[in-house]
């Protein structure tokens, strides 16, 4: 053992000297993040094993010690399990990174972190106060507001379905939040308002702008993804903020929720300067109750943190068609998160069976197959909990060398887009176009549109046409807007004929707002959130319906009910609509003033011009009038 260590330390000295530059910048950042880490540690009192305490230590030391850590790991986990009291709820943490070379030549990296906890916050009379892996800040929120299921996503950019295919977990541009409350909640709106404000603080986002004017209760589009069969949509709240800009300040609190923070495991790759130098960035938190085991006798809570990012081949590649973890994230992987039970990197090599499209190194003998989004995919798997993954250099730097060219556009089976038609500032028309590119299968989709009240929809102009024929939706749920109180909600179940384009149009009138209701930049326009198309798309291969724990995370998010189809949600682009806007500037005031003056002046002028005047008899002095009175009595002529 000692000799072994000695040899390894020699190797490490060599590595250290070659990586001197790299690690010195690391240690700098490490120092910066120390404070942050301490805070998160104090937030969530966790059992940190010997190798989990690396956070506060220098990286150089970590490199030297990591062999010990690795060797100790198995004992460590065993001891920690042994130490855990039998009564305390079991929890586990898994992390996963999927790298998919996209059709267009871009690279899609999808992180998923899952924390499972066999406990129930919502049980009566039981107060959960001991947190280990599950973040306490979220747990407290869940129990306080009786949340059954919570999904929140922050996205910067638009997922290009035509070039990239379907994402593992879709999300609309901006922020999206949907929550199922427990059916014991009496004041759902009150809870919702408080919850959005609390989440706004947790994620440093403008979620506090969610109020009743942009909240809807979809009747069919958003079913709970976890356990339970809730159908009463009174307990559901859905809101989007298409204007929300996602940045580092949202990423940092998100990273803090992870058991290892960004200190170890896959999360070391999450460096904001690289993540926000991409074509698409989306981070999300999904909390839901799931089954503990296959028999589903008891409930467990699942927290899934996902982060999806697409890197652009052109702008970041600098001419070379080559990708590596280091190029993408300016980091390489050196270890798994010590608290994780599984830590894996998957690389999609389905389109590359013979290595003609790209070359992947280091090669791995581990292959895994999974059925994802109606397609059987093959993945190379790198298990970070195994020492041999890191090879001689004790670090994993995946390298992809492109050979092919960026291909033509894809034709995904389901695809949707939306735009505003017409010109001028009075009326307009929202067009939603949904494509079914399946050659012979028709399938129904649920379209959900939530339109702010200031676009007054003319619902009688709603038309649905496919193949230039009228297509009658089999289900329509429409809730008209109330000015300044509630948005429009339109949900429709539409049957899409095979190989067709279905166009949904509805006309609207642009409302004239009160002058205090305009945003500070009224000429930018007003956002209308994405419409949501949810569908069960016919699958090419049989979907995997049985629930197993060792499925990769990316393929197990949406529960699959039947073999022949899979669930897809497509978000269209948000709309930017210009409303009639007064000119909020000096000339505007001048015009107002002049108009007032002209109106007043013109009124009196017109009055005088059109009136005919007559000379009035001057009234007589009092004495003369008295004299006249006497004269009238006397019957003599009057004085004038």
């Amino acid at each position, binding site marked *: 053992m000692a000799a072994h260590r000695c040899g390894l330390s020699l190797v490490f000295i060599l590595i250290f000297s070659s990586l001197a530059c790299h690690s010195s910048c690391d240690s700098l950042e490490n120092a910066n993040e120390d404070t942050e880490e301490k805070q998160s540690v104090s937030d969530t009192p966790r059992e940190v094993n010997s190798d989990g305490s690396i956070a506060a230590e220098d990286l150089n030391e970590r490199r030297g010690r990591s062999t010990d850590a690795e060797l100790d790991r198995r004992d460590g986990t065993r001891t920690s399990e042994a130490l855990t009291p039998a009564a305390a709820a079991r929890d586990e943490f898994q992390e996963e990174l999927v790298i998919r070379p996209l059709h267009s030549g871009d690279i899609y990296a999808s992180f998923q972190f899952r924390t499972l906890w066999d406990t129930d916050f919502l049980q009566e009379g039981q107060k959960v106060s001991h947190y280990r892996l599950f973040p306490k800040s979220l747990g407290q929120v869940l129990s306080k507001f009786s949340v059954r299921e919570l999904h929140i996503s922050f996205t910067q950019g638009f997922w290009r379905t035509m070039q990239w295919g379907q994402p593992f977990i879709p999300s609309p541009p901006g922020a999206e939040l949907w929550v199922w409350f427990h059916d014991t909640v009496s004041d759902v709106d009150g809870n919702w308002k408080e919850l959005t404000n609390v989440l706004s603080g947790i994620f440093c986002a403008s979620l506090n702008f969610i109020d009743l004017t942009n909240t809807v209760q979809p009747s069919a589009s958003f079913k709970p993804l976890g356990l339970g069969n809730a159908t009463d949509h009174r307990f559901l709240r859905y809101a989007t903020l298409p204007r929300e800009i996602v940045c580092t300040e949202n990423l940092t609190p998100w990273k803090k929720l992870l058991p290892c923070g960004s200190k170890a495991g896959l999360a070391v790759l999450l460096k904001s300067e690289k993540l926000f130098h991409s074509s698409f960035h989306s981070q999300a938190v999904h909390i839901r109750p799931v089954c503990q085991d296959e028999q589903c006798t008891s409930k467990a809570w699942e927290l899934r943190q996902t982060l999806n990012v697409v890197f652009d081949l052109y702008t970041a590649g600098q001419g070379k068609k080559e990708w590596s973890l280091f190029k993408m994230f300016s980091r390489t992987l050196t270890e798994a998160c010590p608290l994780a039970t599984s830590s894996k990197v998957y690389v999609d090599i389905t389109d590359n069976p013979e290595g003609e499209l790209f070359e992947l190194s280091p090669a791995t003998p581990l292959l895994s197959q999974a059925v994802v989004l109606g397609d059987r995919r093959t993945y190379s798997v790198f298990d970070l909990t195994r020492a041999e993954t890191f090879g001689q250099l004790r670090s994993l730097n995946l390298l992809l060398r492109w050979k092919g060219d960026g291909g033509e556009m894809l034709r995904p089976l389901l695809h949707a887009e939306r735009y505003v*038609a017409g010109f001028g500032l009075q009326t307009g028309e929202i067009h939603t176009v949904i494509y079914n590119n399946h050659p012979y299968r028709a399938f129904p989709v649920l379209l959900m549109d939530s339109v702010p009240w200031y676009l007054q929809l003319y619902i009688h102009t709603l038309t649905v046409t496919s193949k230039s024929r009228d297509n009658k939706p089999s289900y329509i749920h429409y809730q008209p807007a109330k000015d300044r109180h509630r948005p429009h909600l339109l949900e429709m179940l539409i049957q899409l004929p095979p190989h067709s384009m279905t166009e949904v149009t509805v006309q609207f009138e642009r409302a004239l707002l009160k002058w205090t209701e305009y945003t500070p930049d009224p000429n930018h326009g007003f956002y209308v959130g994405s419409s949501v198309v949810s569908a069960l798309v016919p699958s090419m291969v049989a979907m995997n319906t049985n629930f197993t724990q060792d499925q990769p995370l990316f393929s197990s998010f949406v529960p699959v009910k039947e073999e022949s189809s899979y669930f897809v949600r497509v978000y269209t682009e948000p709309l930017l609509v210009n409303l009639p806007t007064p000119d909020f500037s000096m000339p505007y005031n001048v015009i107002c003033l002049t108009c007032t003056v002209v109106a007043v002046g013109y009124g009196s002028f017109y009055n005088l011009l059109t009136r005919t*005047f007559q000379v009035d008899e001057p009234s007589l002095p009092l004495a003369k009038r008295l004299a006249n009175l006497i004269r009238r009595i006397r019957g003599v002529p009057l004085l004038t």
Partner: protein
Amino acid sequence: MGLLSDPSRRKVLTGLLTRLNTPICIVCYLAGIVWFMGLAFEPFTLRTYMSENAMGSTMVLLRGAIMMLVCFCSGMPVEWLVKAMQSRGLEVFTQSFSRKLPFPDENKERYMVRGTNVYGILRAPRAPRTEALVISAPCSPGDSNNQAVGLLLALAQYFRNQVYWAKDIIFLVNEHDLMGTQAWLEAYHHTNITGMEYSPLQGRAGSIQAALSLELSSDVITSLDLILEGLNGQLPNLDLANLFYAFCQKLGVLCTIQGKLQRNDWDTAEGYTHAAQTMMLMVLKQACGRSWGDHGLFLRYHIEAASVRGINSFRHYKTDAATIGRLLEGMVRKLNNLLERLHQSYFFYLLPSLSRFVSIGCYMLAFGLLVVILLLRALDLWVHLGAPALAAPSGPGVLTVLTPVVISHLTGVALYLLPVHLQEMAVEHFPVSETEAVVLTAVAIYTAGLALPHNTQRLLSGEGTEQGWKVLKLTALLYLAVLLGCTALINFSLGFILAVTLVPITASMTPHMPKALSALVMVLLSPAFTVLYCVFIYQELIEAPVSVSEGWMLFLSVISQGILDHALYGSLVYPLLALFIYPCWLMFWNILFWS
């Protein structure tokens, strides 16, 4: 107001107004003209300045090393363009369109138009497809705009490698210049205002914030000309012109407007004449209401747009393509920085040079002085009609006034409708081409309208009374005043030019003047002759004077262009002249021959 409520003083005032009416009118007219000509005098104008903060303070760093490509277009190389754009990493789409013109366009030799637009969208990273900018280059048959297409592709390649884009950028290569743009814009906004047939667009990028159109007609480019005049005299926000001027200054590129360079010697007669000529050219171009470049059609959709045309007319200067590329890069980057649509600066202005402008507050006064004459004359007539001494026992019947009004307008409708609809019949019976048939029919109907007074008189039952023509003239004066006022609000230049020629005759016309002489003056100042004069003045100003016969041919082609612009792009000048201005003029013609 005591002045007006006191009957005796009021009488004095009206007396003064009626007595001094003619001198006041003459003074107003002269003052209006002088004021207008004074607008070009530099001390009276304002220096242009950037109002938009997003474009002003943040200077962008230009480092575009742009290679010039030359593509040899013969017609529209659709496939080649698609490939070229795809290889530069854009999302490429095509759109085909077709249109049958109402009659053959002899200037551009087209009748059945079929074409394809190619456009590529550069998707901005991390942007949700809500905003876009457009850079367009018309690709016409022959090699007249090759350089622009080449530059467009080079820009696309360079832009694709940059990370700072916040708005999607659409690179549009349109065939058949304006028609392609029209088809593309209509498809993008899913409207159909002109009956064009086009295939729907497959890719969109949200609401378009601004557009630039490139026209580089020769290999050697000495200077860049900025074209602003759009459809129906609409102009883009002045900040767009400021932006162009600022970058030209920065990069040392020679820039012109109306093809005229800026001069610094405003205090000399030449300097003033130069500025006045530049402004007059702008007024004439704006008045004709057609789109002078591809940008003009964008304005309808509230998209600020301008055309940049490279010209080769100044020796000793040469601007290389890299500089033009940098200029465009700078402009696009500044537009990319915009947080709101361009709205801070003026939408109504005249430019005597690129660095000076006249705002609406200044030039409207010139127009106001002209139109007030009509109101003064109307007031005068009103007072005369109201005077009890002249009042006839029974006022003129409604019929006496209504008949000429209706008949004049019917003539106007005929002038608007018949030329296009009767072209087949005309071609059958006369040895002329379709285009000639349309134009000559229009001229014929216009001339036939002059015989109207006799027909109107025949319809009327009794003799025309003194009272009758006065009521008719009062109506016509107010009508013209409203008409010109509304026109000037939308298109100042058109309103002003019409006012200059129409106001003198309409203000002075009575049946008691010498018939032959006044008839001649009236015809010489009629709307058609106004157009003719404009043609001559325009040719004079662009330093290409024409002889009378050439001028006449140009005049005919201007008429056909006007009708075509109306049919193809929805220009409103021809209908305005045919349906309103000409009937209004006919009403005065009627008064002259009142018996």
